[in-house]
């Protein structure tokens, strides 16, 4: 029982080569997973539909910025704004939500649907590594619909300004809030979206669940804060409200909910951290 079988046809007739070279370990594996997830999120290496969806949404998210840039370049002398940085996310809120829902359901949903998770966890990575790579991939992807249009608008306004130096002096203060809000919204939406997507088996349900989780509290909070001012604390149940107020505070504007600004800074960080922690716990129990 020691002799091997005769080679069966040319296709098997290849000697095996071992590998004694370096094995790069866990951080490299997580980096690889991050890169592949980000590529897959934008449909690279996959079909036409995911590509079309992701890039289509990015283009739509850029439209208000492009309109603003065109107005700044061609428009009247006085400083007319079609959209200002702190209003931008409100303009494209639906796009950000759709992007989160579609990509979150792909990023964690596919690995669960196809049963691939167990193959990842038979590689030298830890539970949290997988979640961190997926979270980073979606957050990075989301920057394309948050930070990217804001940056395009910022640079376009600058280039279109009659006096670039004067414009920079007046608007440079916006740059840190643009980066801060872009990062916070991307990370929080990514974590909440991925967490929700892990609960839905099918792709369509995952997308609907993610949308519902953002939209239902949003509509409820909008409704009850109209009726009663005492209901302002309900805003914390709505991630969109928390992110909106956080953004307004960063841009030194008055939040629509009548609470001190620092509360929304704390709430935003708490949201991001809680969703990320729940996501990692959730993944751990799934193999």
């Amino acid at each position, binding site marked *: *029982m020691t002799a091997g079988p005769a080679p069966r046809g040319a296709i098997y007739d290849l000697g095996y080569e071992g590998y004694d070279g370096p094995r790069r370990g866990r951080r490299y594996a997580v980096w690889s997973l991050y890169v592949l997830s980000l590529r897959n999120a934008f449909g690279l290496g996959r079909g036409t539909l995911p590509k079309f969806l992701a890039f289509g949404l990015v283009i739509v998210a850029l439209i208000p910025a492009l309109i603003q840039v065109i107005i700044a370049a061609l428009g009247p002398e006085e400083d007319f704004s079609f959209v200002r940085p702190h209003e931008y996310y409100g303009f494209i809120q639906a796009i950000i939500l759709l992007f989160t829902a579609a990509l979150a359901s792909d990023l964690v949903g*596919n690995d669960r649907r196809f049963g691939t998770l167990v*193959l990842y966890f038979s590689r030298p990575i830890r539970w949290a590594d997988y979640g961190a790579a997926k979270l980073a991939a979606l957050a990075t992807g989301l920057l394309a619909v948050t930070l990217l249009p804001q940056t395009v608008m910022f640079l376009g306004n600058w280039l279109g300004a009659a006096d670039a130096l004067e414009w920079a002096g007046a608007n440079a203060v916006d740059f840190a809030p643009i980066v801060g809000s872009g990062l916070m919204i991307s990370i929080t939406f990514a974590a909440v979206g991925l967490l929700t997507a892990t609960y839905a088996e099918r792709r369509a349900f995952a997308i609907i669940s993610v949308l519902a989780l953002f939209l239902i509290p949003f509509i409820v909070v909008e409704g009850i804060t109209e009726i009663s001012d005492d209901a302002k604390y309900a805003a914390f149940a709505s991630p969109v409200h928390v992110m909106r107020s956080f953004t307004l505070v960063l841009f030194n504007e008055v939040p629509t909910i009548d609470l001190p600004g620092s509360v929304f800074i704390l709430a935003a960080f708490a949201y991001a951290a809680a969703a990320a922690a729940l996501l990692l716990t959730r993944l751990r129990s799934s193999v």
Partner: protein
Amino acid sequence: MIPVPLIRTAALTKHYPGVVALDAVDLSVESGIVGLVGPNGAGKSTLIKILLGLLTPTSGAATVLGFDAGRESLRVRELVGYAPEHECLPADLSAVDFVVHMARMSGLPAAVARERGDAALRYVGLAEERYRRMHGYSTGMKQRVKLAQALVHDPKLLLLDEPANGLDPEGREEMLALIERIGHEFGISIVMSSHLLSEIERVCDSLIVIEQGKLVRAGEIADFTGVTHLLVVEVDGAAAPIARRLATVDVKAKAAGRLLEVSVDPAEATLVHDAIVAAVAEEGLPLVRLEQGRHTLADLFSPAEGGAPAA
């Protein structure tokens, strides 16, 4: 050869609420191709998942290639390749992209990962189709990709959970030949689970039998098959006269219609083969087949044999 213990477990126990999946299993597995047999739900997959560090045992310990399966699971997983029983391939990626990605997940640098990913798919017999997305793949092709992704990082040990499940007889035979080649030619030790003893018998050097979480038997294949080595002979006509002819040369045979079951002592296998062929020829009947009897778990646990406790 240095006898490296592939796997060692001591009183390994895993409880789920209301179920004992593994019950104080003591094992020592040496290199080669090892079969892990037991009915569905016997604890085979639980054992494999504990060895990979995917599950934490309730009590007891397990080491794989000298590393603790729990505390040093990342070291273990660098050296082990795993192919699960169920579907696990992303349908929207090509086989080559996926296997290369899995190589990188095991720490192989990008260029090496590409090279070995391609090679692994060729070893398992996937040619041009490896560039196609996997959603159109047959069960056989998927099983091959599962094997390739387990092999791609040059593991010292392969853990294969029901690798031939769901395949047609021809596909099963090819898969088993592939496993045998990997184990005996490539020199990679393999633990493969199966609920079919015939599969294990076909390729494995040794065998572990578990049932209801308990180790029933463990040992060399010959220890198991030596007792009831059966040859199945089929002729194109009544088999009874052949049985009578064999009886005259002291070969015990049982005829049933066109079939003949012959007990063979492995030491005299060649003699018995010759006797059968001679007897068939003398009867002037065409020989349809002559093959090793297919043992099943049912045979192994039949009352006649008894369930001898494990060593």
